[in-house]
């Protein structure tokens, strides 16, 4: 398709909005909400089917025995879809919200587990819902430690926007007063259980600069008026979140931003609309719309708008931009410096440590909690001091399973009754390590392979490096040492050696920066060289930090959308 628009004026008028948002996941939903709140007529495009809150959660209240395989995925589906089958959240009750490998192939030059959710709401239905603010140390990191490029913003630029999204989304947490993990606008925190508290106290006593705190997550522990207005109610501690929540207990586009935006009367949702590319007008020197292929009929349509937000999730955003070629941008949208698709990074999830815990057999817990204790990064915080760059966040949790009946004859009634009691406590710990964005970690378009919609397939060339190995080694030894100091026994370190991707924290490829020569986006997520196009999903990230990223995507998006509205009103775009 060229740049000429062969379309009559009436059809063009019908397909014209003030703004187009590509993608309805966690950041796209926020872009739509903010734009609509400011009276901007917004078209929200989603390649997958519609998923309406409450109505389209078919498994939300099913008990384990109501699934034919009690949750297990049949072998045939696993064999045909090895990538998605490796995802922790993919099971019989949630599989309908995941993309099957066979439906949307991609090319792994190096192994990469690309986990996707193609429906209205995207992966916001499926996310792990852990939400921590970045601190000043993450924004200052690249410049101080000489990697990637300097962030064009600092903590103070984004702090009010963190508050803005936290109040609306509903974030539970304690006011911990740590400068490495700034406090936010919190609903009451979830409790730790007795063993977790004991481990917390022992670790905090043993290490002056390490702080175990309770995790912060996007669950309504005590809804405020703003959440009630969204139609959401208190989280019921069911932990069946990936099926969609009938209580609206956790934040998703479906439960929160999309219905809110719809109520303004300014939002049009177009599901089953696969975006092919962004249309650039060489005469007007700006983007004027997007080319869309109907996901079912494959019929092509064009939509037009003054502002375009690209929020298709990191890799699909890169894909759309790379596929958006014009006379002005022959190598992909905004790609004058050739860096689009490069400097991909993610979180290192390879290391886990498990242990047993003796004692407190007279204590138990009630309910299923959606978060767990965690520790902000404590490596290289104030200065570079380790044999690796950056650091990692640590999470742990303690649980009791069923008793094993080990001491009994393991057949018969006595054995069975023993199995129904609560078992020993066990502890599991995991890492979330920062990875350094590198030019060699990249995605690009296949020259010969296309998908069913005629769009080139994405090729992955992303891998770990020596820094990741050294950081992992440090986590494994520190994790084991901390659990040892906390009095745990039978400590086992494990390196899963999993391919990148299962963290589902992919970032970069269209990074923010100060210099148009080394970055694609400016401090407001706006293309340096095309002012009416914005990218505010994971693709915009200059570096990864150690925090779960979604809260930062939301805050960046809200900030960018409000900036876009201001610029539009001033006549600058």
């Amino acid at each position: 398709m060229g740049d000429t628009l062969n379309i009559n004026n009436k059809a063009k008028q019908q397909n014209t909005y003030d703004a187009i948002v590509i993608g309805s996941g966690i950041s796209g939903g926020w872009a739509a909400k903010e734009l609509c709140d400011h009276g901007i007529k917004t078209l929200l495009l989603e390649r997958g089917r519609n998923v309406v809150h409450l109505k389209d959660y078919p498994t939300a209240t099913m008990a384990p025995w109501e699934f034919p395989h009690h949750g297990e995925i049949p072998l045939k589906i696993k064999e045909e879809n090895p990538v998605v089958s490796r995802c922790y959240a993919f099971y019989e009750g949630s599989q309908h919200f995941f993309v099957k490998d066979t439906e949307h192939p991609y090319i792994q030059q190096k192994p990469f587990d690309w986990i996707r959710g193609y429906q209205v709401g995207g992966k916001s239905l499926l996310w792990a819902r852990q939400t921590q603010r970045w601190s000043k140390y993450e924004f200052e990191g690249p410049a101080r430690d000489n990697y990637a490029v300097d962030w064009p913003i600092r903590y103070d630029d984004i702090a009010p926007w963190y508050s803005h999204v936290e109040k609306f989304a509903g974030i539970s947490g304690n006011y911990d007063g740590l400068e490495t993990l700034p406090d936010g606008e919190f609903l009451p925190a979830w409790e730790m259980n007795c063993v977790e508290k004991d481990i917390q106290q022992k670790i905090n006593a043993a290490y002056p600069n390490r702080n175990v705190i309770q995790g912060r997550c996007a669950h309504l522990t005590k809804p405020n008026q703003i959440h009630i207005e969204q139609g959401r109610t208190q989280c019921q501690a069911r932990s069946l979140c990936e099926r969609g929540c009938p209580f609206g207990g956790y934040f998703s586009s479906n439960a929160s931003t999309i219905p809110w935006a719809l109520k303004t009367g300014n939002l049009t949702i177009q599901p089953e609309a696969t975006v092919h590319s962004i249309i650039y007008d060489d005469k007007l020197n700006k983007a004027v719309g997007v080319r869309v292929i109907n996901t079912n009929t494959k019929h092509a349509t064009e939509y037009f708008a003054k502002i375009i937000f690209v929020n298709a999730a990191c890799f699909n955003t890169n894909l759309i931009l790379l596929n958006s070629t014009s006379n002005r941008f022959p190598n992909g949208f905004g790609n004058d410096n050739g860096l689009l698709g490069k400097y991909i990074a993610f979180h290192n999830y390879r290391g886990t440590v498990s242990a047993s815990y003796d004692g407190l057999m007279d204590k138990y817990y009630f309910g299923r909690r959606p978060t767990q204790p965690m520790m902000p990064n404590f490596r290289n915080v104030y200065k570079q001091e380790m044999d690796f760059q950056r650091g990692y966040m640590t999470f742990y949790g303690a649980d009791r399973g069923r008793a094993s009946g080990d001491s009994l004859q393991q057949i018969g009634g006595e054995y069975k009754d023993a199995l129904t009691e609560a078992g020993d406590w066990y502890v599991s710990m995991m890492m979330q390590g920062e990875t350094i964005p590198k030019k060699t970690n990249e995605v690009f378009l296949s020259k010969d392979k296309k998908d069913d919609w005629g769009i080139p397939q994405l090729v992955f060339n992303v891998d770990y490096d020596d820094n990741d190995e050294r950081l992992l080694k440090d986590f494994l030894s520190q994790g084991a040492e901390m659990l040892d100091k906390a009095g745990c026994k039978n400590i086992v370190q494990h390196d899963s050696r999993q391919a990148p991707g299962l963290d589902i924290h992919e970032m970069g490829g269209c990074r923010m920066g100060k210099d148009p020569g080394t970055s694609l986006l400016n401090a407001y997520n706006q293309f340096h060289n095309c002012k009416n196009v914005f990218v505010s999903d994971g693709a915009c990230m200059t570096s990864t930090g150690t925090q779960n990223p979604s809260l930062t995507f939301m805050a960046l998006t809200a900030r960018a959308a409000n900036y876009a509205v201001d610029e539009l009103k001033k006549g600058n775009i």
Partner: protein
Amino acid sequence: MDRREALSRVALIMGGTIIGAEAFLSGCKNPPAKEGLFSTEDVALLDEVGDTILPTTAASPGAKAAQIGAFMKVIVTDCYTPEDQKIFTDGIIKLQDAAQKKYSKSFMEMSPEQRTEFLIALDKEANDRSKEIAANDSKLTDEQKHERKLQQDLGTYKRPVEDDPHYFSLIKQLTLWGYFTSKPGATQALRYVAVPGSYQGCIPYKKGDKAWAT
């Protein structure tokens, strides 16, 4: 009109259930025809084996009440590799042969005490096998284990015969899993709370209190 439809008509004509329907369906072949990997007799046997492992007690119903045989059939058919399916279905025959040899009667004809005694012996055999497999596993280097995982991911891994699990380990595993995720297992043997409403981090626990089902 296929054979199954014919059967239902016969049943209608005769005004009731047909005894030996399996034999009729299969044209009186021996052993009885199987619907997929399992015959009705196999499922009935697995119900009894499961119910011997986890029998009815004062506290809760046994595995048969959870239709454990039907559950095993579904999981082995849909979720097992062909290799494990063969171990499992061969295992049903081995179990019956062993019962016949030891007690000179079928498992179904054995008394509850005999069944328990018999399965305790099988369980020991299976545990010994598991220990051998664990010993084999411990000889592997991390690199070999990683290579194995990569092959498993690609579907190219061929498990050596010496690592084949004992069929009774598979039966017992499925019995425990199926039972404790079944309605009677989760709601009567364990405590199932569909909608807790809140989370409490520290509550008292005394020996004998039931564990949470989920």
